[in-house]
């Protein structure tokens, strides 16, 4: 009897020891640029969010935040959710999330400055807190950072274990005249991310969003 009990305990321990719900979850923090003319691109951001909602599984986390003058703030988070374990509940959460984003896109106000670094810092903090296994920061922006006076963002990022994906990096008017500016801007962000031990990717073709999750 004792032997049977010990075997059952061992199997129980093995099962509970093997069950790891955290390490296999995906956490996505999407930064949406709302500055200047880029605010017009928000429809594309909406379709990306819809794609993410369709792809993410129960227990995954999704947060969408806007990039404005001071993005290092919880107030900039438009919607955040960690999906329930049950698929039916998760589906309802996804519907609610989509509705929130729709409302945001309809009522968005363009911001004068673009604090991308602050947004990334906020994303790092949030995803570390959630403890997802795979962490993604999606930057939906032209990557042109414009800080308001008095904002300090010369902090190195701690991006170990993070995948930073720049989406829809549009070419500005001066980029068309001088492509070096565009390439230099993208390269500057790549260096910043890679110096923080993060993985950097750029996806401009929104028809190939599956590459977000392909390292």
């Amino acid at each position, binding site marked *: 009897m004792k032997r049977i009990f010990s075997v059952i305990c061992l199997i129980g321990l093995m*099962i509970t020891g*093997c*069950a*790891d*719900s955290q*390490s*296999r*979850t995906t956490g996505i923090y999407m930064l949406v640029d709302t500055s200047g003319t880029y605010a017009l691109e928000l429809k594309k951001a909406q*379709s990306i969010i*819809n*794609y993410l*909602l*369709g792809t993410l*599984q*129960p*227990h*995954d986390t999704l947060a969408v935040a806007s990039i404005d003058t001071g993005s290092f703030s919880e107030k900039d988070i438009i919607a955040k959710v960690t*999906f329930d*374990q*049950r*698929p*039916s509940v*998760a*589906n309802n959460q*996804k*519907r609610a999330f*989509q509705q929130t984003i729709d409302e945001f896109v309809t009522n968005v106000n363009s911001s004068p400055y673009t604090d991308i670094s602050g947004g990334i810092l906020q994303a790092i903090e949030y995803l570390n807190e959630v403890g997802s296994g795979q962490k993604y920061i999606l930057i939906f922006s032209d990557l042109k950072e414009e800080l308001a006076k008095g904002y300090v963002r010369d902090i190195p990022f701690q991006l170990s274990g993070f995948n930073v994906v720049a989406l829809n990096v549009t070419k500005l008017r001066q980029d068309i005249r001088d492509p070096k500016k565009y390439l230099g801007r993208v390269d500057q962000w790549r260096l910043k991310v890679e110096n923080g031990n993060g993985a950097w990717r750029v996806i401009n073709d929104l028809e190939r969003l599956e590459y977000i999750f392909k390292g």
Partner: protein
Amino acid sequence: MKFTESLLPITSNPFLLILLLLAAMYFARKPFHRAVHAFSLVLNNALRLFAASVRQAEKRLVERNREVLMAEGLENAERLVEREFDRINAAVVRDLKGYPALHRQMAEVATKLEEDHSASVEVPPSLPNWVTIIEAIANIKHTGDSMVSNMLGEIDKNLRAQHQSAIESYRLSSGKRHALLNRMIPLWRKVQKKLDEVGHSVTDLTERAKGIDHYMDEYQEIRAKTDKAARKLSSSSMTQFFISGLVLLIAIGGAIINFNLIALPMSEMVGGGSFIGPYKTSDVAGLVIILIELSMGLFLLESLRITRMFPVIGAMDDKMRMRMIWITLTLLTVLAGVESALAFMRDRIAADMEALRQTLAGVEQTLRATSKIPTIGQMIMGFILPFALAFVAIPLESFISSARTVLGVLAAGLLNTVAFLLRLAGNIIYYTGKFITSVYDLIIFPPLWLEGVITERPFKIREALDKVSKSRQQKKADRVTRQYEDQTQILESRK
């Protein structure tokens, strides 16, 4: 650094260098030959020994395979004989159980037949005693007396009436006898039927006895461990292996479909975000349910004594076995019900997901098909598949038992090949050693040639001297002979 370069400090002249090398190789020739020979011989012997031991192992494996095959064959033959005996026993018990009733019926029918037979015996109707007297009187010739004539007329009338009455009585009794005989026909048929039944049972028993004789012959052959029996069993094992493997593959296909039917709804029950190792908990749970169903099916068939993988279950007393049959059948039915419910849930979740996908894609939601046939179909499949999977136990048992033989044969073949390759490698190494020594000799052929020349010259001179001395001696002998002949001729001429 090359070997020739290492010799450069000795001399820079390449010709001299080659000469030195050749000289060194010439002097090292015998030790080199010995070393190469010893090395190749050692490897050859080692490989041959290894091959011999592998062959020994193969022999043992073949013997073991034969033993296993024979043991399995014996078991199967015993099983078949036992089954036939069981059937005979059942038939005998069934027939003998009915025998007293049959005997009674036969006795009753026989009695009835006897009674009817006795009753139907034809007895000619007897005429009254005075008829003969009257007949005699009636035959008296009358002389024309009217009184006599009247009397005789009356007698004749009476006689006719009596005759009519006798015929009527005869007809009546004949009719009764015919009725009795008619009544006997179904009784005879009944007797015939019963006798046919008995005959059929006896024939059946005879056929079964022949079957047992056949199985017993096979059993004897297996016990005698004849080659014929071994060949037959081996071929039977191979066939069993492939057929049961095919059926198992089909069953695996069924299990995969079953798994897909319940994996999604299981995530609703155990959560879709947790993992056990690299696998989703819901997937593992679905798999566990299917495996439990398989186990239940296994125990059910084991309790029914269709399969014999667990001797403990087979050895249980009948009461316990019946309990086990009911328990496993109940559990299987409950699990089938659960699966059916999960299949229903799956349909709902899939529809919900599809609706969400359409919403996210910005597509206007299409109206859901109102037909319930797919849902009902899935539910029926969910209910039936567990029972269908329960029968996997039968091919599984065949597969396991035949796999022992087939794997044994394959292992023996593998060992045989290994032994052959080892022997081949040993021979290749041995002859490679010889080849290397020959190539070595080829490289140092100049000093070897010189050695030959030097060692062969004195021998040739000696040979030439011998030849010269021999010819001189011959000449001398010829001269002496000639002188002798001359002197003889002179003497003869003087005579």
